[in-house]
């Protein structure tokens, strides 16, 4: 047996299909945009985190070291404070890696490994992966390898992280604006429904209905419409993710770092659904206050 408020809410929606579609559509559009922002953001943050793990200092040498000097230098570098591990990359190893990374490996035909420099890859401890720590370490490495060309991607990474932070802030501002705008639209759409039913609401009060009894179907109606809008938006984002993002964006990210993009995790999907429900609910509530009065 369906409880009265739910039955009434479903009937109200059936009686005003256009307004119902308007509300559901507005919520769906807003949450789709928000979900897309969140999807991009969580993948950017995951990528940043991953890259951050890979941050290393590389010391390139045009001429390989003699004999046991390679091992001596590697051991000396390992003893520096903040260094977790040191790997020596020979010319042959560098050449082999390049062949693996390039899609068109035949580009390297005719080139010999001797054109590539040797290098020491210096992996840092987690807490030393900041720009400041690296810049303090670089002179020490330079003193051990005076002829080395020392490179590290930290500057670029920090700029990227800064971009992600700005993107997050922008998403927050836009998201807040969109949510308020949607709340306003939902509230006014439901207000139109209530205007059309004002006489009915007055009659309900006259025959002894409590404010809750009168409001409950409308609140549920708002919540249902919000939930439907959220489900539509999740379906839309899912379709976009599999149809467009995975191929396009995924290839781009893969080419710069072997990273696969992921869809919204379950808790984010629940949050989107919850947001839809709350949007509909508060949209209704803000309108109902004006229309439901019992006494003088």
């Amino acid at each position: 047996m369906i409880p009265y408020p739910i039955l009434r809410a479903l009937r109200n929606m059936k009686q005003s299909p256009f307004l119902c579609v308007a509300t559901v559509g507005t919520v769906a559009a807003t949450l789709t945009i928000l979900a897309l922002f969140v999807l991009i953001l969580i993948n950017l943050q995951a990528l940043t985190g991953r890259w951050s793990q890979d941050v290393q200092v590389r010391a390139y040498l045009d001429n390989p070291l003699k004999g046991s000097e390679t091992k001596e230098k590697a051991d000396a570098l390992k003893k520096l404070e903040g260094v977790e591990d040191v790997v020596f990359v020979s010319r042959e190893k560098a050449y082999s890696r390049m062949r693996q990374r390039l899609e068109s490996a035949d580009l390297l035909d005719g080139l010999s490994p001797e054109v590539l420099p040797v290098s020491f890859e210096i992996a840092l401890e987690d807490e030393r992966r900041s720009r400041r720590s690296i810049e303090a370490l670089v002179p020490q490495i330079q003193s051990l390898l005076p002829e080395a060309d020392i490179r590290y991607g930290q500057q670029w990474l920090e700029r990227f992280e800064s971009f992600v932070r700005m993107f997050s802030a922008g998403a927050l501002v836009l998201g807040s604006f969109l949510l308020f705008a949607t709340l306003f639209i939902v509230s006014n759409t439901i207000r139109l429904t209530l205007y059309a039913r004002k006489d009915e609401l007055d009659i309900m009060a006259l025959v002894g209905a409590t404010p809750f009894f009168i409001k409950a179907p409308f609140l549920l109606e708002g919540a249902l419409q919000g939930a439907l809008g959220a489900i539509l938006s999740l379906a839309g984002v899912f379709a976009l993710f599999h149809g467009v993002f995975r191929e396009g964006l995924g290839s781009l990210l893969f080419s710069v770092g072997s990273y696969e993009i992921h869809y919204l995790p379950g808790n984010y999907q629940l949050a989107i659904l919850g947001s839809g429900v709350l949007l509909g609910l508060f949209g209704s509530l803000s309108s109902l206050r004006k229309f439901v009065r019992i006494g003088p």
Partner: protein
Amino acid sequence: MIRLYDVSKHYRSDAAALEGISLHIDKGEFVYLTGPSGAGKSTLLKLLFCAERPDRGQILVKGRNITRLKPREIPHLRRTMGIVFQDYKLMTSRTVFENVAFPLEVQGKKRIEIGKRVYQAIREVGLEERMSRFPLELSGGEQQRIAIARALVVGPDILLADEPTGNLDPGVTLEIMELFKRANARGTTVMLATHSQEMIQRMPRRVLTLKGGRLTGDEGS
């Protein structure tokens, strides 16, 4: 059943809708409230079902002072009353059955009981074949009968009617009055506002006369 003690109501500072009204109505009485337009009949009825509050005085309904009721208590008072209006006040988006059933749904009655009582109430007003229709598909007289069925379905102690036959022709008016008479015969206290002297003459009962917001006559008690 109903007692008013020196009740006054003003809508504007210089115009009194009601002034110094004191009266009592016993259980089971049938009372007309009459007077010219603007005499205060509708205002008096609104005070009884708490759509308005008096500016002065006390009103007791079944021994309870309704001038002190909190807003959340008003619905419970209204559930013991049946109210009939000149413009019927039916919910046009609901069927006849749903309109009459609504007061019982509000009280949380079970579906089976609602079905039984609604059918009985609609049959009593002679419209059982119209149950699945919508109000706007009915004539004025039929709509008013449905409104009365809705008012009576809860078995009210008090039935208030504000010009219930104001929009109806004489033939239909008689039918409507018959319904009020039957309700009163079952023990319901009826208070009916009207300016129709013809109706009062056809079915004589106690008459309270209002003029300019004051009680100027109380006859037939």
